[in-house]
Structure formats: structure tokens, C-alpha cells
């Protein structure tokens, strides 16, 4: 796969511009906003980190951008990909964008991969969904995709099934699928959360290398502040569906402005701090339990 010109016009405008995004679930007890009035931009070659605790609306944000919200959820606001409004586009139009212009990597590679098909077939299908090429040509693309995510002996491994790979290898395969059509935007939702730390370190390095090679813009979603501090140039901190604080990674981590961000940072156990009691986000004995 020789990287050709970016599909997006690199005219200096933001790759992704999200303005006032609100995601609402209709429930029997009325509408609930799980994401409210969220705005951010992602530039080419840049990684935006979205960090927050569980339930803060990170996944709903990424699904809204991908046009993959579950039934019962509606999005409002504006989502512009390369200047073009994509919120409200038809399913067919979104399907065309997904994979080709934007792709997603999820937390759990095992449930995203089909256990009954070889990984080669799964990569070629992703590729052929957007490219009118022969099986043979697509197979060559798949071998190269596996090679690119540093899987050894790709010409042999291509005919293996998901269970024949370790968890870290499977996540490499998911990344290969996400990247095979050379999307402009990749959204990675907790891509390393299910992995051991040593494997996580390898996957993070791989993702950084590939981004440097391809110039993809990325949204990296995680609950892990240390991970986000390593991968992102800019960070959005979310809590309860709203943006608490946003800024450059250095700003957020060296001079957090909001009490919630400060409390989160204080609660992370570190390898070098003195071992007094961990600071707590709200004192549980006073009833602020979660």
C-alpha cells in the first residue's frame, strides 16, 4: 500500500470539527443527554485525547462521529469532516465514509473480529467494501497491511483465525483493518485497556509510528490519564457528558484549571509518590460515593 495523497484536501482547515454535539437518549422517563454541547477539533497528524471516567460519554461521542449511535440515541449539533457536514447524512453516505475516510478501533478485538473467518478475509472484505479490485489484489493489500502492523510472516498468518492470535496480535489486526483504506481519521476507543501493560506499550508505539507514516488524525479515547498524556497533543476532559476542561496536553497536566481534573490527577496511584493515603475524588464517608 503506497500511501497516495490524502483523500481530504489538506487546505489548513481542521480535519474534524465538532460543534455543540449533544447525544440524547429517549427513555420512558423522558430525554436524557449523555453528551451535552461538546466541541472540539482534530487536525491532520494530530492526536486528540478524550479522557474521563466510565459513563462520562466518551464512547457515545465517538459513535456519534462515526454515525454508529445505538437505537434510541439521536445526535444534534454539527460534525464536519474536512469541512463537510456529516451529521444527518444518510446511512448509505455514512457507510461510504466509514472505513474509507474514518475508521474505528475498539477496546475488545475479540468481539470485533469474526471468529469464523480468517483474518485475511476480514481485511480484504474491509478493503473491497471501498475498492473495486480482484480478490488476489486485495489479498496482496491484506498481506501488506499485516506487515505494516508488524505481524511476522504475514503471508502465512493471513490464513489464520482470530483465536490463533494473542490479544495484542488481535488488536494489531484490528488496527490493520482500520488502516487498510488509509482513512483520514481514526477513532480509537480504549484500544489498549484490555491489554497487559507490556503489550499496551507495544501497541501505543505501533500506533504512533503508523500515524507518523500516514499523517492520520486520531481521537484517542481512554480512562487512563497516564496513557493519554503520552499519546495526545491535546486533551478534552469529560465528566457526566460535558467537557470539564480542554487544552494542550502539557497545559492540562502541568496546570489543570478545573477541580475535577485536579482530583482525577491526584487519585492516580504512581510509582514514585510518597505512600500516604490516595487522594479521593469526594470523600466516601460523607456520602459522595459512586
Amino acid at each position: 500500500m503506497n500511501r497516495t495523497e490524502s483523500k481530504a484536501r489538506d487546505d489548513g482547515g481542521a480535519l474534524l470539527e465538532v460543534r455543540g454535539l449533544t447525544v440524547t437518549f429517549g427513555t420512558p422517563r423522558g430525554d436524557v443527554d449523555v453528551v451535552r454541547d461538546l466541541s472540539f477539533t482534530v487536525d491532520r497528524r494530530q492526536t486528540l485525547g478524550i479522557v474521563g471516567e466510565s459513563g462520562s460519554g466518551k464512547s457515545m461521542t465517538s459513535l456519534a462521529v462515526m454515525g454508529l449511535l445505538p437505537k434510541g440515541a439521536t445526535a444534534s449539533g454539527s460534525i464536519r469532516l474536512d469541512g463537510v457536514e456529516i451529521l444527518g447524512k444518510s446511512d448509505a453516505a455514512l457507510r461510504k465514509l466509514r472505513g474509507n475516510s474514518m475508521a474505528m478501533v475498539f477496546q475488545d478485538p475479540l468481539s470485533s473480529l469474526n471468529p469464523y473467518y480468517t483474518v485475511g478475509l476480514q481485511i480484504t472484505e474491509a478493503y473491497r467494501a471501498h475498492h473495486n479490485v480482484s480478490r488476489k489484489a486485495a489479498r496482496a493489500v491484506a498481506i501488506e497491511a499485516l506487515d505494516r502492523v508488524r505481524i511476522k510472516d504475514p503471508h502465512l498468518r493471513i490464513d489464520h483465525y482470530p483465536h490463533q492470535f494473542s490479544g495484542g496480535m488481535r488488536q494489531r489486526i484490528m488496527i490493520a483493518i482500520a488502516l487498510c483504506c488509509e482513512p483520514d481519521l481514526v477513532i480509537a476507543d480504549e484500544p489498549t485497556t484490555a491489554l497487559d501493560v507490556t503489550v499496551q506499550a507495544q501497541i501505543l508505539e505501533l500506533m504512533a509510528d503508523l500515524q507518523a507514516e500516514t499523517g492520520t488524525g486520531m481521537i484517542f479515547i481512554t480512562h487512563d490519564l497516564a496513557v493519554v498524556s503520552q499519546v495526545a497533543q491535546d486533551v478534552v476532559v469529560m465528566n457526566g457528558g460535558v467537557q470539564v476542561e480542554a487544552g494542550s496536553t502539557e497545559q492540562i497536566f502541568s496546570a489543570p484549571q478545573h477541580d475535577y481534573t485536579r482530583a482525577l490527577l491526584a487519585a492516580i496511584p504512581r510509582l514514585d509518590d510518597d505512600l500516604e493515603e490516595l487522594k479521593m475524588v469526594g470523600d466516601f464517608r460523607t456520602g459522595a460515593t459512586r
Partner: protein
Amino acid sequence: MSAGEPLLEARNLVKEFTTNTGGVLSGKKRAFRAVDDVSFAVGRARTVAVVGESGSGKSTTARMVARLMPADGGSVLLDGEDVTHGTGAALKHFRSQVQVVFQDPFSSLNPRHTVDRIITAPLDYQGMGVPGGKRQLVKGLMERVGLNPDHSGRYPSQFSGGQAQRIGIARALAVKPKLLICDEAVSALDVSVQAQVINLFKSLQAEDGYSIIFIAHDLAVVRQIAHDVVVMNRGAVVESGTRDEIFDNPTQPYTRSLLAAIPTINPEWEARRRVNEQRERAALT
């Protein structure tokens, strides 16, 4: 480890599973050692962490120690007494001394039972009388773990993950055990909740003096709670020692690689943040 006889000793524990090699259909079976000659001791009122990557045999070891799974070799001693094979009254007595807290609070709590009933279930199994009555005990335990005692009639689904884990802890503490085995008990929790639950384990341990086997894959968490650390890899103990020995002077390359892989925040940013916050605090006073 601490002076005197340890509360618990695991000696040369072995567990073998048979696996199908070459795919499900080939029918070829092979014995595989998930736990291979594992030994460690747990001192009184101490916390021993068992760490290692997924599949290293931590949970299997814990299950054997907790008598939830028979060992294929080795023995478990509690208070110097061999408890590896006891049944009937002996096993019941063992269960009154050793309690387990699991990773997923919801799947380990019966969704159709109220908190009241969940917390008192081990007492009923033990046939233990409760001075002052069960109601009082439940309320007391709920207060100790930081839950609202007025919620004792609620069902697990009405609680958050962190609260559900507190219910599991209250249940484990109801029989006043000497040993708590926590298998990834804080792994699924958000950092803020994780910090609360770790502090809870520590303060209750200071009050009650129980020992803890704390199984976790997150070494930064382990450092907050453990007195001693056992590092496992591929079913075997790689090295063990006090917390400071393992974290400050790991002797094995495997331990070093685990420590090196932990993601950290740029120390410069951390230092600046602390200075900023100190300055703000000073300006306030």
C-alpha cells in the same frame, strides 16, 4: 515477611489443565501447568500482592488457596494447620476464616437478593449467631464500607460499580475473616473509586487486623496497598519480596520489564503541577 508464624502458607502449589492442542477438532490432549510449584507466605495483618500478566496463574493460585478449586499438588496451611483437603466441618471452619472478593461486583452478587440478604448469607451458611441482631450488623457493616445503611433493602442493580464492590466487601467482612482474598477487586473501577476502595481496605485492615492476598495486574495500584509482593509469570513465581525490594530493587528482568511498561505522566509536568497547586494554596492562606 513478618516475624512469627505466618497466617497462611502456600507450599508448592500445582494446577494442571488439559487442553486441546492443534484446534478443537484434533482431539489431541495435553496437560498444561497453569500453576507450577508456587509457594509464598502471608503474615498476620499483612497484605501480599500477587502480580503478573494475564494468564500467569494468579487467579488459579487464588482459587486453590481459597479452596474454590482443588490443587493437583502442594498444600495450603492456615495457622500452621494443613487445610488443603479438609471437608465438612473443617471446610466450613476454613470458610469462616477466608473470604474472597472478586473483580466483577455485579456478577458475584445475586441480582434477586437485597443487600441485607447478600451481606448476611455467609453468616447463615456458617450458622453464626449475631449478637445485637442481623439488622444492626448489616447497618454497621454498610456504614463501615461507606454505604448508606438506609439502602439495605435495595438490589445490586440499584448501585454503581464502586458501591457494588463495597457490598462485596461488607459481605466478606461479615464473618470477621482472618484472610481476605481479593482477585482484581479494584481493577474494573474508575481511578477515583479505586482510590476509595484501596483506602477502605487499608483502614479496615488497620481496625480488624486481617491479612489480604491482593491479586492485581496493575503494579501502581499494588504499590499503594501491598506489604509484600509475589511476581508470577507463566505459572511460576519469578521473584518475591517486600514491596520496596520489588519496586526499588527488582532482581529479575521480567519484573523490571513489567515496571518499565507502566505508563507514566511526564515528571516535569507533574512537578510543575505540584508547584502550581502549592502556590495557589499558599495564596489562599
